[in-house]
């Protein structure tokens, strides 16, 4: 399941829920992204409808490619302060390799293909964050 959250994302609770529901498959892997202290806060602009669809498409691709039994992507939008969770991804499968690789894959795709536009506010200065070259390169390994 995927969700775009305007309010705080509780990654620990999300993990607990996912594990309770999907642990029985055998393997559960997850990733949590947290806003680093370099910025005061980030602002993720989003396009209601299109952003969710972009994330759903990525999640669906992950399920298909890795044969996952379950997947969840929870992504913040709007203002996210330093120290707050901005994204949570979890995958469940029968054996560990699929779940572990799927989480890596999903994060690489989210970083480039989720319809989000990031602004960073630090020391009162507001600037758009450009995509990182690293992120584009990360996508290449999944081709």
């Amino acid at each position: 399941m995927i969700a775009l959250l305007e309010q705080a994302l509780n990654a620990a609770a999300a993990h607990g829920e996912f594990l309770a529901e999907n642990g029985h498959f055998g393997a559960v892997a997850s990733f949590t992204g947290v806003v680093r202290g370099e910025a005061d806060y980030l602002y993720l602009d989003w396009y209601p409808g299109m952003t969710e669809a972009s994330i759903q498409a990525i999640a669906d691709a992950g399920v298909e490619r890795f044969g996952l039994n379950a997947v969840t992507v929870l992504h913040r939008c709007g203002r996210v302060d330093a120290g707050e969770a901005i994204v949570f991804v979890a995958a469940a499968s029968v054996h560990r390799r699929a779940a572990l690789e799927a989480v890596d894959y999903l994060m690489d795709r989210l970083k480039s293909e989720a319809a989000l536009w990031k602004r960073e506010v630090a020391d009162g200065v507001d600037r758009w964050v450009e995509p990182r070259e690293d992120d584009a390169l990360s996508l290449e390994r999944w081709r």
Partner: protein
Amino acid sequence: MGEVRVEVLFFGRIADIAGARRMACEAETLLGLRDRVFPETPPGLRMSVNKVQVTGDVALNAGDEVAFFSVFSGG
């Protein structure tokens, strides 16, 4: 078919360039709309019609929702 009235949204750095978050506009095609909105096409401009990303030109229909945006920065 002639020009039709569409809703235009802007996201990312493109919104700063356009100087607006949304506007109503009239045009016949997507690229015609783009040229009407931007005197010079901003580098890296992406477009969507009714929330589906489009490259190239398409005819517009009355009531379509067009968005102009920059490359996604990722979450």
